[in-house]
C-alpha cells in the first residue's frame, strides 16, 4: 500500500470512524448505566432487612456471663465477628475502640463476637484496651455468621443494625473508617 493510498483511506475514514465512535460510546454508556443500575440495586439501603436474628442472640462474655444482644436494642449496633488468629481483624479493632469512645455517648454500641476461646480474647482485649463487650462465639460463631450472610465464612465480618433493629450494612473484610463514619452519620440522631 502506497503512502497516497494510506492517506486516501485516512481521508475517507473520519465519517465512518465517528459513526463507530458514537456507536461504541453509546454501548459504553448503556453498559455503565446497566452497571450503575445494578450497583444501586446491590447497595440500596437494606433497611428493610430484619435484624431480629442478631438482636435475639445470647452469648457468654469472656468472663462467662450470658449477654443478650437485646439489651442494646435502640442503639446503632456494630456487631463484629473476629478472632485473635485473624490479623486483619486485630488491625481494625483499635479503630472500633476509638469510634466506641467517640460515639458511644451518641448511641453507638460495638459488640465483638469472637470465633475464639476466652483466654485468648481476654489477653487481646487487655492489649487493645477493648471498651466494648467481647462475646465468645467459638467456632459455632462461624456457622452463625453464615446464617447472617457470611457465605465465605471468612473474618472479619461486620453487621450494622440501626436503631429500629434493621440491618443497615453488612461488611466482609475490614470496615473502612470512612464507611463507618458515613454510616454512623446517617444512622445516629442529628444533634
Amino acid at each position, binding site marked *: 500500500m502506497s503512502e497516497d493510498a494510506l492517506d486516501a483511506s485516512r481521508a475517507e475514514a473520519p465519517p465512518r470512524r465517528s459513526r463507530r465512535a458514537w456507536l461504541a460510546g453509546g454501548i459504553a454508556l448503556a453498559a455503565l448505566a*446497566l452497571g450503575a443500575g445494578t450497583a444501586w440495586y446491590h447497595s440500596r439501603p437494606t433497611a428493610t432487612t430484619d435484624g431480629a436474628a442478631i438482636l435475639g442472640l445470647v452469648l457468654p462474655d469472656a468472663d462467662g456471663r450470658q449477654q443478650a444482644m437485646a439489651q442494646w436494642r435502640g442503639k446503632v449496633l456494630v456487631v463484629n465477628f473476629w478472632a485473635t*488468629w485473624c490479623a486483619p481483624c486485630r488491625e481494625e479493632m483499635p479503630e472500633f475502640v476509638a469510634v466506641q469512645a467517640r460515639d458511644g455517648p451518641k448511641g453507638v454500641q460495638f459488640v465483638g463476637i469472637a470465633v475464639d476461646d476466652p483466654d485468648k480474647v481476654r489477653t487481646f482485649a487487655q492489649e487493645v484496651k477493648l471498651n466494648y463487650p467481647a462475646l465468645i462465639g467459638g467456632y459455632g460463631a462461624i456457622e452463625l455468621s453464615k446464617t447472617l450472610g457470611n457465605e465465605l465464612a*471468612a473474618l472479619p465480618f461486620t453487621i450494622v443494625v440501626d436503631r429500629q433493629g434493621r440491618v443497615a450494612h453488612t461488611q466482609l*473484610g475490614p470496615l473502612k473508617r470512612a464507611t463507618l463514619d458515613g454510616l454512623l452519620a446517617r444512622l445516629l440522631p442529628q444533634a
Partner: protein
Amino acid sequence: MARLADACSLALACSLAAGIAVAQGIPGLQKSLLPADQAFRLSARALDAHTLEARFDIADGYYLYRDKMRFRTDPISAHDPALPAGERKHDAFFGDVATYRREVVVRIPLAQAAPGTTLTLHADSQGCADVGVCYPPNPQQLTVAIPASKYPGPFVEAAGSKWFK
C-alpha cells in the same frame, strides 16, 4: 479499520468491566474472594510404601500459616513431617510468622511401611487473603491408597472443607 474495531471492542470491554466492578460495590469482596477450599487446594499421594506427599496449591493473593499446619494419618500413624521454612511475614500481634504462598509440598513419613493399604490423611490448615480476610482453621481429610508396587500412587484431591458446602 481493524484497529478501529479493536478500539471499539476494547472500549466496550472496558466499559462493561467498569460497569460490572461498580455493580459489585460492597458485596464485591464476597463475590471476588474464593472459598477456602478453592483458595487452598489440598491433594496428596503415596510416594512409596512409607511416605505420603501432601501439597497445597495456593491461589495468587492467598497464604497459609506454617504453624497452623498439621498432618496425621490413621490407622497407621505418621511422624511429624519437616515443614518447609516458608516466607517470613511480620504480624503485629504474633511477631514474625512463617507463611506459604503459591504451593507447599510436605513429605510425611509413615511410622511403618503399609504397601497395598489405604490410609486416611488428616490435614489442618489456616490461611488468609491479602485483601484482608482470614479463613477459619480448616480440618480436611483425604483417603490415600498406598501402592503395593514401588511407584508413587496417583494424587487425590480433598473434597470440600467442613465450613463450605
